[in-house]
């Protein structure tokens, strides 16, 4: 399952950066921060997580009030929507909490926090679902409340990761990566499956759309571009001229 052709450059990419970070050219933007500077320091990590989490949580606020802007896939967002439309928030809460927990454990072990599982699904879906289920609608209704709530959640996650990192990886002297290589291979190959899935889905929706999707994907493959993009553009173009028959 491990796709060596895509995971090899990923593994190699992390190394040369450390050697080349000592160059000191002029200009504020291009100036390379040193090893001990704010931008690469340990305590800057919670700050960055807080920013991203604040944005994602506020995106969910936008979705809650204006029905657009949630940072997640349709399938995951629909779980939250089920709760918003009067159903139970249990599915979204358990799904989000599960991903958040798994990624917060994994993140410090492998050195990269997966923002899809931890922030987009955990902070963007799971935590809002829990808040709404418990009746706390205010953080999702008000923009100026959503930002600080998201930022605090993100900062807590960032600090938790640094604490786990100190307790595990750093204390064991780096003798275990806790399966980072396994996760890297699986994560890398997951993105590749989307293209074929889009074509199958398009072909199920209607024949012209399926045909357009197939041609688009084939052209993109020939031009050595990601197949998924072609499949999507092909389906959209075909759907523009031959709308999918409604049921």
């Amino acid at each position, binding site marked *: 399952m491990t796709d060596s052709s895509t995971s090899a450059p990923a593994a190699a990419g992390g190394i040369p*950066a*450390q050697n080349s970070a000592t*160059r000191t050219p002029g200009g504020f933007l*291009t100036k390379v*921060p040193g090893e001990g500077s704010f*931008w*690469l320091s*340990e305590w*800057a990590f919670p700050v*960055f997580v807080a920013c*991203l*989490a604040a*944005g*994602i949580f506020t995106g969910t*606020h936008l979705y809650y009030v204006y029905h*657009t*802007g*949630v*940072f*997640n896939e*349709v*399938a*995951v*967002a629909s779980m939250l929507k089920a709760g918003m439309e009067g159903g139970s928030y*249990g*599915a979204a809460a358990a799904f989000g909490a*599960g991903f958040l927990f*798994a990624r917060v*454990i994994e993140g*410090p072990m492998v*050195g*990269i*926090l997966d*923002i*899809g599982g931890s922030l*987009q699904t955990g902070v963007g879906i799971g935590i809002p679902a*829990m808040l709404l289920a*418990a009746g706390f609608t205010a953080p999702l209704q008000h923009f100026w409340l959503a930002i600080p709530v998201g930022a605090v959640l993100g900062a807590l996650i960032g600090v938790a*990761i640094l604490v786990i990192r100190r307790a*595990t*990886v750093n204390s*064991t002297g780096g*003798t*275990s990566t806790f*399966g980072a290589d396994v996760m890297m291979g699986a994560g890398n190959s*997951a*993105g590749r*499956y*989307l293209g074929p*899935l*889009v074509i*199958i*889905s398009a072909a199920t*929706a209607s024949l012209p759309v399926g045909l357009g999707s197939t041609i688009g994907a084939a052209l993109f493959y020939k031009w050595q571009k990601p197949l998924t*993009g072609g499949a*999507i*553009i092909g389906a*959209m173009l075909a*759907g*523009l001229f031959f709308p999918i028959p409604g049921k």
Partner: protein
Amino acid sequence: MNDTLTVLLESLVIGGLIGFGASAGVARMFHAPKVQGMGAFRTLGELNACQNDPVAHFSFGLGFLFNAWSSAVGTGALTGDVDHRIVPHWTASAAMIKNRNLAETLHNPRRMALTGTVVGMVLITLLNTTAASIPHSLQDVAAKVLGPASEWLINPVMPIIFWMAAVDAGRRTGAWGTILGGLGHLVMGNAVPGIVLGIVIGKGVDDLGWTKVTKSLAGAVIILFAASTFLRGADITLLQQLKVDIPHWLLQFHDATGTKPQ
């Protein structure tokens, strides 16, 4: 009209925040494991695959922009690709136009964060405000084609990919992955978190044995599964399906916390 303006202003703030955070995290990924980064392994691989060519970064992001756009139009969900792919690649592309030195651009958190703030502001505002102006037939294609595809990716395709990776990574990891994966789908509705935790525990025990670290990891995992079981009301569903009488206090407890299964 007033709503559109509110969405526009809020999108500017949201875009700035995610652009700043995500781009800084992505640049820090290139300094991992020494520095804690954030993003995803696949993002790292895709950024490397573009081989510091600004055009390659831009067109890679563009492909996913159409995806995100159509999804935003049809359903209001911007897709996870915005933070994972479009923002990192477009920020990298913008940073590299004049300077191809990786250490000064893609691997430089300061440069990436400041460029990313602008990219995020433009991108999120574009996605959130223009969604309504796209033809109805396109919205239909988005909902009917991308909806099922992303649903399949989340379940069952992703679980199977991680499951096979766990099974191929050794007997212990495979066993933990299988047990936690199966239980994960039961209590959380998706097997991926369970399998990921199975891989972490299995590999940790392979390398370190049952130390304090691995024991507390396993303990935390058990607590998570118990909490999720309760949140989704999976305990009540199980008792019902086993045709066992549900204790009155358990039902009341679920009622009081609003966690009854549907």
